[in-house]
């Protein structure tokens, strides 16, 4: 199944509101889109979802800059969009704070900026913000672990983080730690991978050696999770359960099948940028969110980070990204 068909369905779901005039073709708008390098599945899913979303509208021309993890390069991409006079910019910054000045510049130039995923540090830098909830993700994972292990105060909890130098990773870990603390648990072993299958396998292999007995693992990212599961299988370990993160289709299928240690995953929506594109289009065309009474697009939308388990997986699997 390709992602775009998934998205069609999802937009079919979300498209209930599209019966409104919002989906009518309006003035053609050019939207600039810039995101970090698609060096892992979730980020690739982001860009792809954004493109797919734009394809659905005849009146949207999406200009996608090469994904980059160098803030300087990303800044220049936004500058290029400003020079170009695009109608709106959807920006998933590699580092929110670092991209703030250029976003401000765009706003000052009259180009609405939709900030996705990693927040700017100035409220004036974006017209609207679509956020995944990284801290909330950690909290959801922690709460789920608590719910399973709450009665075992000396349970061993391990964490496989994503790229450690990213603030979002810090947020997730913080949320996780906070939630665990609520039920008297803490993280006993923590390793960091790099959002890739391979790094996940490597980190997990070492982790399993470091901790001979584990009760629960939270793995930040389902992409690297494929590798983590491979490592677990190789080591022949199954005394614990694992919670994933991001919510890839792979992970959900594994949860559905129920034959691995992966019992749950916390969704971190990969459709944020697609939402951003929609908002950008509406903004550029002076439309509003049809399901809201409010005539203006809201300033901030924080997406939920629900826990997907065997019980509710059917509900989410269709919108999951393929990694």
């Amino acid at each position: 199944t390709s992602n775009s068909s998934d998205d069609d369905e999802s937009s079919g779901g979300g498209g209930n509101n599209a019966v409104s005039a919002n989906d009518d073709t309006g003035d053609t708008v050019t939207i600039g889109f810039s995101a970090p390098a698609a060096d892992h599945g979730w980020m690739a899913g982001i860009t792809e979802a954004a493109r797919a979303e734009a394809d659905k509208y005849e009146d949207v021309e999406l200009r996608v800059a090469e994904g980059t993890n160098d803030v300087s390069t990303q800044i220049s991409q936004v500058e290029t969009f400003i020079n170009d006079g695009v109608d709106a910019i959807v920006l998933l910054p590699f580092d929110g704070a670092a991209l703030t000045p250029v976003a401000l510049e765009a706003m000052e130039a009259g180009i609405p900026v939709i900030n996705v995923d990693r927040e700017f540090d100035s409220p004036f830098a974006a017209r609207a913000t679509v956020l995944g909830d990284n801290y909330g993700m950690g909290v959801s994972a922690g709460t789920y672990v608590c719910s399973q292990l709450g009665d075992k105060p000396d349970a061993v909890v391990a964490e496989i983080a994503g790229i450690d130098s990213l603030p979002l990773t810090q947020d997730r870990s913080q949320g996780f730690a906070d939630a665990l603390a609520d039920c008297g648990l803490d993280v006993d072993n923590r390793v960091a991978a790099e959002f890739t299958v391979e790094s996940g396998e490597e980190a997990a292999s070492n982790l399993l050696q470091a901790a001979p007995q584990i009760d629960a693992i939270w793995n930040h990212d389902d992409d690297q999770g494929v590798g983590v599961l491979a490592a677990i299988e190789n080591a022949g370990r199954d005394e614990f359960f694992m919670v994933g993160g991001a919510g890839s289709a792979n992970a959900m299928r594994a949860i559905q099948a129920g034959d691995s240690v992966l019992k749950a995953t916390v969704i971190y929506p990969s459709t944020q940028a697609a939402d951003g594109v929609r908002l950008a289009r509406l903004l550029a065309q002076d439309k509003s969110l049809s399901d809201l009474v409010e005539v203006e697009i809201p300033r901030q939308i924080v997406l939920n980070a629900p826990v997907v388990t065997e019980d509710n997986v059917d509900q989410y699997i269709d919108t999951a990204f393929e990694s």
Partner: protein
Amino acid sequence: MAGPVGRNLGLVVALVLLCIAGVVTAGDRFADIDNVLTILRLASVIGVVSIGMTFVIIGGGIDLSVGALVALSSVWATTLATQQMAEDTHWIVMVFTALVVGSVAGLVNGVVIAYGKLVAFIATLAMLAAARGLAEIIANRRTQIVQDRDFVRFFSGDVLGIPTLVIVFALVSIAGWVLLNRTTFGRRTFAVGGNAEAARLAGIRVQRHTVLLYVLSGFTCGIAAVLLMARTTTGSSTHGTLYELDAIAAVVIGGTLLIGGRGTIVGTVLGVLIFTTLGNVFTLNDLSSSAQAVARGVIIVAAVLLQQRLVTGSATMRTPRSMSATSGGPAGATSGGSAVPGGPAGDGPGGDPTAP
């Protein structure tokens, strides 16, 4: 032999072709002055680093730690303490801090390499890991925001329409050119990189000079950190990721030999501009990033081949040891890891670097 343009003819042609491609595919949007400034602004940060790298490579070394040093300098210059001090006095304190941190780290590199006799590749790779780790620890993995508005205003402003960043880059390039071509320091750099033993026997203090080269590279990293701080209003341990590869690529495509002893600042600047313009043209044309990667690979190869053909073609009269080049140039071909066969530098291509 041949002026800088002649020697870098291929690069100039490649850049012009690239610009033509830009104009054809993106029209006014490319040729727009704002767009040109955008390209130059982007080129500034990596460009400054590449100038320092040019010296190190001509001097026979390599510096893999530049990206990490940019990160470390930017983080150190934006700690609460530094910013507090800057607020109490003047933002120049932040600039100063960045430059000192970069230079000192470069000093460590240099001492370990020259006196500890470690291979530069390993020593600076170790510094890469250590400096980035240190930056993370200092910043506690958070992005640190520059509070001083004056600092940002100064560096992100412009003079007569030319962004300060670009002016800094131009100044650094000119200073680099003068230093390399018009001073004893530059002359010694060529000597040390060309034949360290001969340089030593000619009375040059090779070790001390080596140290200075790495300090210089660290210093340019400090400058780059300042520019990046101005551009992003932040200091962060993720700044400068993979700058080492970008800088080395720009230097090498600019005709500087990886084995040292030969290279030009002009070539490096052109190399930086080619890479930056390439990215800009791609963005204007909305290419998917995978396709961009493929195209980038092909274009790099094409540009270097062009440079070789043009320079060796027009310069057969100037290229002495064309022996290996004509006869199937094996020396260069395989010491390719280090030598530039067919010599993009245009002088002495394929000159067997290992023959005595």
